[in-house]
């Protein structure tokens, strides 16, 4: 046993002196997580910056002096909604003439331009059933499609309100006529009542995370999920760096010389596995602690975090050994290993987190060990207990056992 640890200790010291390996193991996941946190607002929940929108209001107000109202502008209603204080974090609106509004979009300064036509109010406020139709134009930059979609959704809501007011007016006119009452008064009263009911749809749609075992769960910040994905992904590279010493020593002749000593081969390979496992274990612990210190990530219960780290280290180290058992040279190990880890990272959700939840990709994620580990980390971050991560720990361990058995089989044939 002491010889296993002697070999493991030698490899660990060698890794700790290897600057490129340390960069891949520690700096890369932390730097990329910091970068993505920086991209989406500093590490808390996912947030995006306000969409720049140019508005050109060509609408001519309609005079309704008979009802005592000086004038009404449906266009200004839409502008008011776009500029409302509730939307100031979502939209950054500036009113411009039509040509300037289009130029803002063409020049990439605005994601979209909202162009309200001249006949907008006259069409909206008409109760005639033969009224011509009108349309607000959303002139959007297709390379800024998300901002365009947000603007589209908000303008759609504004139009729904206006069409709703018009529907109220039309229905009131028809019912009033049927009841033998004044048509004009009913229309004005219906619009006033409709608008007075709140000016919003009256339905709020709120979002919350699913409950774990009937308990209320925490909402997960984006940085925790991103760092968990990056940590699992770069643990593969960490394991690969250490396991590659088998190839280096084989190439340099130190491994064959070691085989001539009284140390059994299983002890030598056991030492290599131990060093790989301990290295990625240390890597994961450092990243988790750094995540807590630098990004204030609440990883969840200690036992849950420990189980996930142990399982992840087992998968990463056994896969690292399997890749090394298949290839012949360190260069092959670098290229094939990187390819395998990138595909696993892609399919397992290391780059996309939970973005694919509920789709076909979510099923694909469950075919990979890192996909299951990320499910476990998601539950840990939401405050789940050990009972919530039974499968996310057991299934990666099964992968680890299979990878390890295959690696041992390959090494036995290779060093027979």
């Amino acid at each position, binding site marked *: 046993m002491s010889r296993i640890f002697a070999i493991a200790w030698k490899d660990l010291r060698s890794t700790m002196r290897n600057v*490129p390996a340390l960069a891949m193991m520690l700096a890369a996941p932390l730097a990329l997580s910091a970068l993505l946190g920086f991209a989406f607002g500093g590490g808390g929940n996912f947030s995006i910056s306000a969409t720049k929108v140019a508005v050109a209001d060509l609408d001519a107000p309609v005079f309704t002096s008979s009802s005592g109202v000086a004038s009404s502008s449906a266009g200004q209603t839409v502008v008011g909604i776009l500029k409302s204080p509730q939307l100031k974090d979502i939209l950054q609106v500036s009113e411009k003439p039509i040509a300037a509004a289009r130029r803002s979009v063409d020049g990439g300064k605005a994601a979209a331009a909202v162009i309200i036509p001249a006949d907008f109010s006259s069409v909206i406020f008409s109760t005639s059933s033969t009224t011509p139709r009108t349309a607000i134009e959303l002139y959007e930059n*297709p390379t800024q499609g*998300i901002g365009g979609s947000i603007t589209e959704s908000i303008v759609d809501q504004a139009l729904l309100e206006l069409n709703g007011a018009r529907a109220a007016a039309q229905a009131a006119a028809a*019912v009033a006529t049927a*009841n033998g009452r004044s048509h004009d008064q009913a229309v004005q009263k219906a619009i006033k009542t409709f608008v007075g009911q709140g000016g919003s749809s009256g339905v709020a749609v709120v979002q*919350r995370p699913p409950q774990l075992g009937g308990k209320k769960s925490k909402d997960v910040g984006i940085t925790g999920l991103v760092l968990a994905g990056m940590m699992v992904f770069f643990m593969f590279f960490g394991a690969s760096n250490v396991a590659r010493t088998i190839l280096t020593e084989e190439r340099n002749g130190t491994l064959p010389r070691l085989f001539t000593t009284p140390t059994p081969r299983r002890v030598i390979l056991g030492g290599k596995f131990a060093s790989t496992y301990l290295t990625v274990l240390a890597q994961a612990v450092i990243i988790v602690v750094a995540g807590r210190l630098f990004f204030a990530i609440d990883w969840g219960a200690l036992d849950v975090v420990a189980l996930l780290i142990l399982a992840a280290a087992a998968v990463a180290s056994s896969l690292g050994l399997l890749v090394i058992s298949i290839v012949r040279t360190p260069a092959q190990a670098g290229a094939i290993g990187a390819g395998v880890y990138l595909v696993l990272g892609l399919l397992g959700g290391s780059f996309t987190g*939970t973005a694919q939840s509920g789709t076909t990709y979510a099923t694909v994620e469950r075919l990979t060990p890192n996909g299951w580990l990320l499910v476990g980390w998601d539950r840990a971050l939401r405050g789940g207990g050990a009972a919530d991560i039974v499968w996310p720990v057991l299934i990666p361990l099964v992968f680890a056992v299979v990878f390890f058995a295959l690696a041992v089989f390959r090494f036995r044939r290779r060093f027979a």
Partner: protein
Amino acid sequence: MKRVWTLAGKDLLETRRDRLSLLFTLVMPLVFTAFFGLLFGGGSDRLPLAVWSGDTGPAATQLLGALERSDVVAVHRMTKADAEKAVDDGRQAAALEVPAGFSGDLAAGKPVTLTVVGVSGSTGVQAVQTEVSSLAGRQAVLERAAQAAAAAAGKPIGQPQTSVANLTAAALAMARPLAQQSLAHPVATLRVVQAGAAAGQVPTGFDLSSPGMLINFIMFSLLTAGIALIQERQNFTLLRLMTTQVHRWELIAGKVAGMFILTFVQQIILIAAGQFLFGVDYLRDPAALLLMMIATSLVASTLGLLLASLLKSEQALIATVVITSMAVSALSGAWFPLEITGPAFRFVGHLLPTAWILDGLRGIILRGFGVADVMPALVVALAWSAGLFVLAVWRFRLTD
């Protein structure tokens, strides 16, 4: 000059013989393009939505009916416990809770709350929430319009008038279909015009992912050439070359030319795949596209030469290329559009030539950019390439 081409040809031959390099130069970028294209393009699948309802009233029934007819979600009715578990397991994109009293509160004009259950960061949850908000909002507006109309029209002459809070079923029953008919044929609609889009062009997820992955993986193709340069330095091959008639400048030029041609050929294949496999319209302006391809290969080859000159081991090169390519890709908008990031991130991103090149490529594809439009990207790329080249020549060593 002949010796430059011979040296470049030797490196290209080595790369062609290394089948592993195909993995990074062609296979991986195509796989990632397809994956991210489908992921961000939404696909044609409807999102599975678990629904449980504590209300059996008319408004709840109508809302569930509208959701079942939706092109965005596929409704699966289940119990609350099953729905929570299905979302947690990733089998459902989200779950919707329709609370008890939903129909009554809506009819009474009281505010109502629908709850969408989903895991953090899921794009599916955002799509479900938007769809539920839209359909429920439409229904609420219809109800409000009917109530306002019934209250405003009043009862037949001779009967006492009423308020919104105390409407008769008869008045509402009369107003609701009229309001519904009006809302079904709105006079004011929204017309979306894509600036610079070709006739009939609808942006897809591949328009975003294809140029992004091209930039992401262009640097990976430098691994083989970079490793070869490091090995030649370690094996004293470069030093021995100096005993021949090859000049130092020819050696450097040969290495850069090899990397330039390699990345250029890679771009041709990836762009052809994007155009013909994924329907990305790269060829709207071939001249502008050619300039962007030259810019990309110039930046990549000079960066490759610099990294291979600076780094001493293959392992260091692999680590640096992986980390640099991921960081540069994220900052340049290859993974996600920069429009959703903060102004500081966008500013930092646009200090890199790759962000400008991506803007140029996406502009060509989606907005019909021509040569004049991609000139800023070309100038930035040329300035960066010149800087990288000077640094690489300064740091170029024949031995460690």
